């Protein structure tokens, strides 16, 4: 009956002691996740606050043809309170970090960094679209955390699992086989496995501090 159980883990849902009515929850305590998202978006707004809408970024972007919002339009929407439209777009996930816009921006704004900051904000916002778009970055960083150095074969294997798309590996399979034949792929051990554990733990601790 309670709508919340729809999303709950099956084991938890069947737990006997769950009489608390969700509707009884009192006044909204600030959700830390929402606060973190707002702070992340504020960081981006601060980066692009000096935008004068000249459109040099859009004209310089090699991937603009595939974007639903042009970069120029995206900065404007963000500054005028349309954060959801920005977060729902795939524009910032199409940034390939070529730094063309950053180089040419007549206001000297760090636009490539702003694109990356939007990807980080999108992680905080969550949702199925984010999971798919962000899977590569999350998998990559987890690979670094576990192995100390990236193993490209291990990375791609975990990436395909994270995508939850059984067809995804097929478009890379012919290349994977050619790379195996060239000795360019394989699961060898990393000499630095676990080396970055303490550093990652410390960063996490510092980033979770309010």
């Amino acid at each position: 009956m309670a709508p919340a159980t729809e999303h709950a883990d099956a084991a938890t849902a069947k737990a006997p002691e769950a009489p608390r009515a969700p509707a009884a929850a009192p006044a909204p305590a600030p959700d830390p996740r929402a606060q973190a998202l707002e702070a992340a978006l504020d960081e981006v707004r601060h980066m692009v606050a000096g935008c004068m809408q000249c459109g040099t970024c859009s004209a310089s972007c090699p991937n603009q043809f595939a974007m639903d919002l042009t970069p120029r339009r995206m900065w404007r929407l963000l500054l005028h309170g349309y954060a959801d439209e920005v977060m729902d777009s795939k524009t910032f996930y199409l940034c390939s970090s070529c730094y063309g816009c950053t180089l040419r921006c007549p206001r000297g704004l760090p636009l490539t960094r702003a694109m990356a900051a939007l990807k980080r904000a999108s992680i905080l916002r969550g949702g199925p679209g984010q999971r798919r778009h962000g899977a590569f970055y999350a998998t990559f960083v987890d690979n670094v955390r576990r192995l100390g150095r990236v193993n490209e074969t291990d990375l791609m294997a975990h990436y395909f699992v994270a995508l939850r798309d059984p067809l995804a590996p097929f478009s890379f399979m012919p290349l994977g086989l050619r790379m195996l034949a060239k000795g360019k792929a394989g699961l060898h051990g990393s000499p630095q496995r676990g080396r970055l554990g303490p550093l990652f733990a410390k960063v996490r601790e510092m980033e979770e501090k309010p």
Partner: protein
Amino acid sequence: MKYAYYPGCSLTESAREYDASTRLVMADLGAQVEEIEDWTCCGASAVESVSRLLTYTLPARNLALVERAAASAGRDARVPDVLVPCAACYLNLLRVGEEAGRDRALAGNINEVLAVEDMHWSGAARVRHLLDVLVNDVGADAVREAVIAPLKGLVVAPYYGCQILRPYPKFDDPEHPRSMEPLIEALGAETYAWSSGARCCGASLMATKKEVALRSTGRILLDAQGADVIVTVCPMCQMNLEAYQSEALAAVGGGERVAVAYLPQLMGLAFGLDEEALLLARNMELTRRFRDKVARRFADAPQAEPQAEPETEPA
């Protein structure tokens, strides 16, 4: 010339040919290249999308290792420049100093993290890309002297990619780079005039939005049709340009395949180094057209024979 060498993860796996040819060519040019002990991943271009603090601490850890090694070598030991062949590693390592150098709070946070390993970053180690070192420390004249088998008649398209010059143009024009041209000419080859040398190859979009990256790669390959080979200075550019040619060319309406090689591989060929040692067999797109022209290099220089250890003494 002494450098602390940061190979980066790609050069230990898919781009081992870039690592091997870099070490051989630098040794041939008389440079001392010592791998940083205990180095770890710099975070590549993915980490910035996940954590701002990791973006700086992962590369800073490697720079701190260089500083620590210099300190333990003695009070007067100079902190060596850090030599980086990979464009993404280079940018990550470079921006620690570029950004934390003028942001005390960030520098403080970086060092708070590094303290868990009893390390400290001060910014003493200068970060240099391989191309910068070849052009400005070695120089085209020394390269010319090391050549024993000039690559006559070979037309070479210099491909710089993005991150070695943007957003921090340390050694060349970030829109119209030309620093590779004197090196290419020193090898006896010709520079192919084109406008795609600094155009983005799609980078990691090849993993996340393949259809978009294929168009970027395809346009570069189309523009290179008059060249015998594209030379690269980045493992990701190399992979995107060499490994997806049939799909990329199809995405832009078709064209001929183009050979793609790392700059130090091409230099090694002109230096008379052994093709096996340069790991040429690992390249995924070396066309007959390229191979035929390169095979002629010893015919043009009959006194030179292929050898693994040429006895040229660099100036």
